[in-house]
Each structure stands twice: as C-alpha cells, then as structure tokens.
C-alpha cells in the first residue's frame, strides 16, 4: 500500500513536470488565446497574424496535392494547407474557425473529397492518435529546447514555430494507377449525407460572414472520385454563388497516372503535387484577388522557410 | 595434479592455479587455450574429453579440471 502511494505520487509529479515543460516549450505566439493542445493540432497558429492569403481545407488529398511553397516560389501567394488525414467536415469547420481568428484569407478552398467522408464510423486507432496529439503535444515541440538551452551554439532554426511545409506532406513514392475512364458520365449522382451537408453550410456561412469567397476544388484522384460525386457537388451548390473546380474532368493539370501517384491514383505524389500547385497558382492569379508578396519585407520569413523546405526535400531524397 | 598444473603454467603462466577459481569466467583461459589444454590432457592422461564436458564449470579451477580427469579415467 505504501508503495502504491509512492508510485502514484511519482507519476503525478512526473505529469506535472511534463505539463510545465510543455508550456515552457510551446510557441508563445497565440498562447493567450489557445491552449498548447490547440497549437499542437492547428499548424496554422504558428503563422504570423494576417499573412495567409488562401486557406486550403480538406483531408489527405489536400496535403498530398497542394504544396504552398511551390506556389510561393512562382506566384508569391501564401497558401496554407489546413488538412489532416481523414479530416471530417465538422473538424474542418472547427479548423477554419480557428484559422480565421488570426488570419484574414482572401479565399478559402474546400477540397470536395471531405464532403463524401463516411461520418458514421471512426477507426479506433485514429481516435487514439487524435487523443495522443491532444495530450502529448510535447512530441511536437520538444525540440524547442534548442531555443532556450545553450543558445550561444549553432544557428537558430525555427523549429515547429512555423511549419516549413505549410501543411504539405512530401511523399515521393510511385505506384501507378490503372483505371480507365474513371470519370465516365454514366455514373449516377451520389448524394452527400446530412451531417456533411450541415457542416458544409456552416463553412459557407462562416465564409460569408467574413466576406471570404469560397471555392470548391476536386484535385486529381483516380482512386475514389467519379462523375457521380461530381454531380453531387453540383447539386449541393446549385443555387449558391460558389465556383467548382474539378481537376478530374479532362485532366487539365496533365497528370501522368503512371508516374505521379503514390497509391494507384488515390493520392498524388510529390511530382503530381508540383503540377497541381502550378495549375492552382495560375488559377489564383486569374481570380485577381491576390497580390505577389515575394518582394515584401513582411514576408521575408517565407523565403527562409522556402530555403529550409528545399533543404529538407533534398535530405529526404537521400534517404 | 602436479602434472596438470605444469601443463597449465606452460599455457598461461600469469595465474596462481592454487587459488584461482574462475579460469574460464575470468577469461584467463580463452577458447584457443582450452583447445591446447584439452589436447595436452588427452595425451598426458590418456583420456578422451567429450565435447559435452567442455563447459566453464569443469574448467574454472585446476581442482575442477583434475576432478574431471579422474572421473573420465574411472569411466574408461
């Protein structure tokens, strides 16, 4: 019994230490408004106030297909991927709410795949993962000790304060897709379920309240996208003023499905993402909503991130 | 017994065989030395030492080795 008490005390003290250290190491930025847990989940909170032009909301398709740094390099627009694997519409809504608290984007892009996610079942290990990242936020910030300890040594790297990938994930794997004519117009319309519709409307409302135009985008996805889903989206936005950009119709991006997908067409790989980012950059330019920030002093840190991004890709390539 | 100590001293002179009781575990005899030792014992005392008997506990002291030899001689 005595040992039991001792063990519990030991663990309690350990947890206290971990929590204290977490708060010490978490980025101070935005801390007055959000908890450490929030900051660890929402990468965009690491960005400086009012610097993001475009928010790309969605699931893994977003972080596989849109690389903000590629758009920055060629167009000077600041895009951020507010995406998580298998993100649900209600989580996406939450993310957008957090994002526009500190940012005033000129455009919100909503990836359509998220609207077809099955909201009724959840995988348990996914739940555990989510729970984990909520409480074990030290995982993300532990390297910030470098900022505080031995600060006279070596160069200062902006560890996790700013996400150098801006939400993008680099995956160079190749696994060709083989489907033929996956956008056959014969496919019957697929309805969007009530929960997804509800949260879509909430997202739209949020955008309207903040006077941000919304665009629905469907990135090249041979794995699960089809004409039926395309028709479903068309129905959803029938009477609303929302542009719908479906990159699956006639392959305007020019994806080579033998080389530019990592899992038989479900997600694009790095090569594919470059093409989509190029296309999207051009699209953004044509909207006339955005300005090129490449020469602006305020956005100097984006060039620093770009340098680290390149370096990181290079190192990843070695592996 | 004296003969045995003689052999041992020739192979590894740095040990006091009267007192040392961790010849193998203390790495005074490495496996190659044990090979020489076994082949000398077999010649000198006219016994066959089977592989199973070559375990640290049989070779950790001069006394132990001597016991092994005596036992094997009896079994012959």
């Amino acid at each position, binding site marked *: 019994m005595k040992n039991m008490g001792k063990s519990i005390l030991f663990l309690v003290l350990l947890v206290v230490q971990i929590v204290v250290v977490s708060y010490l190491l978490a980025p101070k930025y935005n801390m007055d408004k959000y908890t450490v847990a929030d900051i660890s989940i929402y990468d965009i909170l690491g960005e400086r106030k009012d610097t993001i032009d475009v928010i790309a909301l969605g699931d893994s398709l977003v972080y596989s297909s849109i690389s903000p740094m590629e758009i920055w390099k060629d167009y000077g627009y600041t895009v951020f991927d507010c995406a998580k694997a298998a993100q649900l519409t209600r989580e996406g809504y939450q993310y957008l709410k957090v994002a526009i608290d500190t940012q005033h984007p000129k455009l919100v892009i909503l990836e359509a795949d998220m609207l077809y996610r099955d909201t009724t079942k959840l995988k348990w290990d996914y739940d555990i993962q989510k729970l984990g990242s909520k409480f074990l936020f030290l995982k993300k910030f532990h390297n910030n000790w470098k900022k505080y300890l031995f600060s006279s040594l070596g160069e200062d790297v902006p560890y996790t304060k700013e996400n150098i990938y801006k939400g993008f994930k680099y995956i160079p794997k190749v696994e060709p897709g083989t489907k033929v004519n996956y956008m056959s117009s014969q496919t019957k319309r697929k309805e969007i379920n009530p929960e997804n519709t509800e949260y879509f409307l909430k997202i739209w409302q949020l955008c309207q309240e903040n006077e941000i135009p919304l665009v629905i985008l469907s990135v090249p996805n041979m794995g699960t996208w089809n004409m039926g889903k395309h028709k479903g989206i068309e129905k959803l936005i029938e009477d609303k003023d929302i542009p719908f950009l479906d990159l699956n119709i006639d392959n305007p991006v020019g994806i080579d499905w033998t080389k530019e997908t990592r899992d038989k067409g479900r997600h694009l790989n790095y090569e594919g993402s470059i093409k989509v980012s190029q296309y999207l950059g051009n699209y953004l330019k044509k909207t006339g909503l955005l300005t090129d920030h490449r020469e602006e002093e305020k956005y100097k840190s984006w060039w620093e991130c770009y340098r680290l991004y390149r370096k990181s890709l290079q190192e990843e390539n070695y592996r | 017994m004296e003969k045995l100590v003689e052999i041992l001293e020739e192979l590894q002179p740095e040990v006091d065989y009267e007192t040392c009781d961790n010849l193998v575990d203390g*790495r005074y005899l490495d496996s190659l030395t044990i090979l020489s030792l076994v082949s000398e014992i077999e010649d000198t005392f006219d016994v066959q030492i089977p592989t199973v008997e070559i375990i640290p506990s049989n070779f950790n002291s001069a006394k132990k080795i001597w016991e092994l030899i005596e036992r094997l001689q009896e079994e012959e």
Partner: protein
Amino acid sequence: MSYFTVKYLFFFLPAVILVYGIMPKKIKPLVLLVASYLFFFWISKKLIFFLILSSLSIYFSSLGMRRIDRITKEKVEGMEKEEKKRIKQKGKKKKQILLLLTILFNFSFLFYFKYLNFFASIGNALFDIFHADFSIRLVKHLAPIGISFYTLQAISYVVDVYHEKIEAESNLFKMLLYLSFFPTIMEGPIASYPEVKDSLYEGTRLSYHNLCFGLQRIIFGLFKKCIIADRLNIFVKLTFDHILQYSGITLAFGAIFYTILLYMEFSGTMDVVIGSAEIFGIKLPENFRQPFFSKNISEFWSRWHITLGNWLKNYVFYPVSFSQPVKKISSFFKKKFNHRVSALVMGAIALFAVWSLNGLWHGAGWQFVFFGYYHFTLLMLGNIFEPWISLGCEKFSIHRKANWYHALQIGKTCLLVFIGELFFRANTLSDGFLMLQRIFTHFDLQQFQTEFFHLGLDGKDYLILLIALGVVFLISFLKERGVSIREKISLKTISLRWIIYYALIMSVILFGAYGPGYEPVEPIYADF
C-alpha cells in the same frame, strides 16, 4: 512494431502486466504465452505457422530421444559388456539421425527465408560465367520475425537433450513459450534452456522491486536509443549512402558514429528486453559487458553479443574442434611440430567455421561474409603473434599490466572494431572498400568544417550527444570497476533517487531525437 514504440511501451506491455498481475499463479505463464503469440502474430501474421512448426519439431524430437534412451537402458539391463556396447551404439545412431533431421528441418526454414536468394544469385552468376542459358528466379520472402534467433535457441535445445545435458521437456506449453517469449523474440538474447527454464515458468508475482528495476532498465534503454542512436542516424545514413560527396574526416566520423549507433541501438534494445522480462521476474542472460573496454578482439567478442558468441562456441567451435577429421589433422601437426602449432591449426579450422557462420548469420551479403573473415583474420593474427609480442615486451622491459599499455590496447581494439563495423554497415562490399580508401585519401579539412554541422546535427545536438555519451561511459566505467550503479542508487535517499529518475525520463522526452527533423533507427538486429 519495435520495442521502442508507443504501442509496445504504453499499450502492449502495460496490458500484459495488468493481465499477468490479476491472474492466479498457475495461469501466469500461460498469459505470457498468449501475449507472445499475439505479439508474433501482430508482426508476422500467418508466418506464425513456422514458429509453431519449429516448436513442435524440437518438442517431439527431444521426446523421441528420451524414448530411445529409455528403451536402450531397458534393453541393456543384465547384458554382457560387449553386447551392451553394441546396443548402446545402435541407440546412439538412432538419436544421431533424429538430431540431424531436426536440425536440418529447422535450418531449412532459415535457409529458405534468409539465404535462398543469396545462393541463387551466386548460382546465377556461375551460370553466367559458363554461359548456361538459364537462371534461378529470385523471390523476395518476408521472413517470420526473429527466425534467426529462435532457430538458434531451438537447435541449442535439441543438441543439449541429445547430449543428455538437459532433460527433455514433456510439457508442450513450456516449449512453445521458450521459443516465442515476446521480449526476446525480435532481437534475442539467445537464451539456452537451462538459463531461463526456472524463472520463465515460475509465474512470479509482480513485485514493487521487480517493477521498479525493470522500468529503470527500460528507461535507460530508451535513453541510449532515443537520445544517442536516433540522433546519429541521419549523419550515418548520409555518409554511408553518399560516400563520394563527403570528406575523409566526415566519413571517418560516419564510421565511428555507426559503431556507437549500433552499440546504443542494440544494447539499448537489450535493456528494454531484459527490463521487460525482469518485471515478470524472469532473468535473461546479458548480451553486453562493456565491450569497448576490451584489450583485444578475442575479448571484444566475449563482451559483445555474448549470447551469440556462446552459441557459436558451444555448438560450432568445440564440436568442430573435436570432430574426428579435425582431430586427425591436429595430431598430424602435433607429431610434426608441437602442441602449440597443432592447437593453433585446430583452432583455425574451428574459428573459420564459426566466423563463416557468424558473417552469414548477420545477413546474406558479401559485406557480412567479409565482416566475418575480417574478424577471423584478426583473431588468428592475435594468436599467432602473441608469443612474439610477449617476447618483445620482455626485451624492451615493457610492463604489460601498466595502465598506459592497457589504454593503448583498448584504443587499438576500438579502431579495429570501427573498421569492421564500417564494412558491416556498407551498402555493398565495394562501397566499404571505397569508403575506407577515401577516409585516408580524401583528407579535406575545409570541406569537413563546412559539412560537419549540416548533416542533420547542429552544435546543440553534438553537445547533447557528448553529455549523453558521457553518462553512458561513466556508468560503463563504474560497472567495469565492479560498482553496481543501480544498487548504489537504490541506497540513496528517496528525493535524490527521484531526481535521478526524473532527470532520465525528462531527458528522454526532451532530448530524444524524435519528431520533425529526425528519423529513428529501425531495429537493426531484428533483420538478421
């Protein structure tokens, strides 16, 4: 799933401890068996079939041997001496055949999964040379986890039963658990049956003492793996994969870092493994004894991966040394020269067998074969020159027990080990030679200065490395002096003790090389 995952440390192990704790004493070993099979199935899925086959094969063949022994004993009762001998011989022959079949059976799986491709590619190369118009198709198999480890345990068990060193186990469950015990299944230690049988089936109650000691050991393993090994990984990977890009000094650091990484990874895993078992009151044999304090290569191998060395010594070295053909050869040399030469020849043959197997055991590749023969050569040279060195020292009146002489010996041994591990890690054998050559020919101090801080590690990382290595060195040094640091700590006051534990845990959490910017080491020995 490696032992260094959240899944193992925070879900699997605690769950097993919990179930083990609430079950009655008799059921406890069964809990371990079920957990072990779940663990194996989790990683290797239906390949678990091969583990079961191996367990069954040694179980039945050892019982068969016992039966043969019993029948022989009954038969010879009251017989003449001559007749007795003849029947005993016959029984022995039967046992021999059974033993041989069991060993072949078990090795055939190992061969199939690990070596088929290697030998097939050698075959194909030969066909090419002779312009034969066919080739063997290479198929990549996913091997059952730990097959290199449990196969050796299985063989040690049947051989020991054959020699009547141990009793054949009649309880099948015990046999199944012996081969599959989850902490040891992936990377050893390769425990002989007598070493574990008492504690493995005891069903020891969980105790505060065991729990604390086990957890401490696990945390120390995490310290080695997460702070040191994982941190060095990117540097090592970059240097070994891009030999031509870096200066010789950087490559030399790469080689040294790899040896450190390997030690920290493997011995750290052993700490987690032995610590996990300790929680259940099970004592596993140690695999390391401060190897970097060795004075020569022979000693190094008695301190590094000890259980593999012991296995090879008991089941390869001695049997080969005392086999009939080798004995004949050695007696020839005995007549011609003397005992020393004959023992040297005998040892050379046996060591050759040991190191061929040691090299191949680590993997089917020429760099591993080379690694084996490299150490074989060093060992033989050491033995051949020993008399001359000893003579030389006497002549120049060098005291071989002096501290400076020891330090010199330790330095030399480490250097030789670094070179060996360089080949061990090299992607191919020719890469190994290239790297070794460039260490000496491509000495570029300026290039080194610019690249040293751009290989995944910055100044702060190096500082942390130095401190962590200092801690591990200090503990090893004290152990080498015969001081048990754990016993020492347990005698201190509670506040001091807790401060030490907290420092260890927090340093793993803070300074562990995980998350963005790092890439953890894959379990190295699990692939062997």
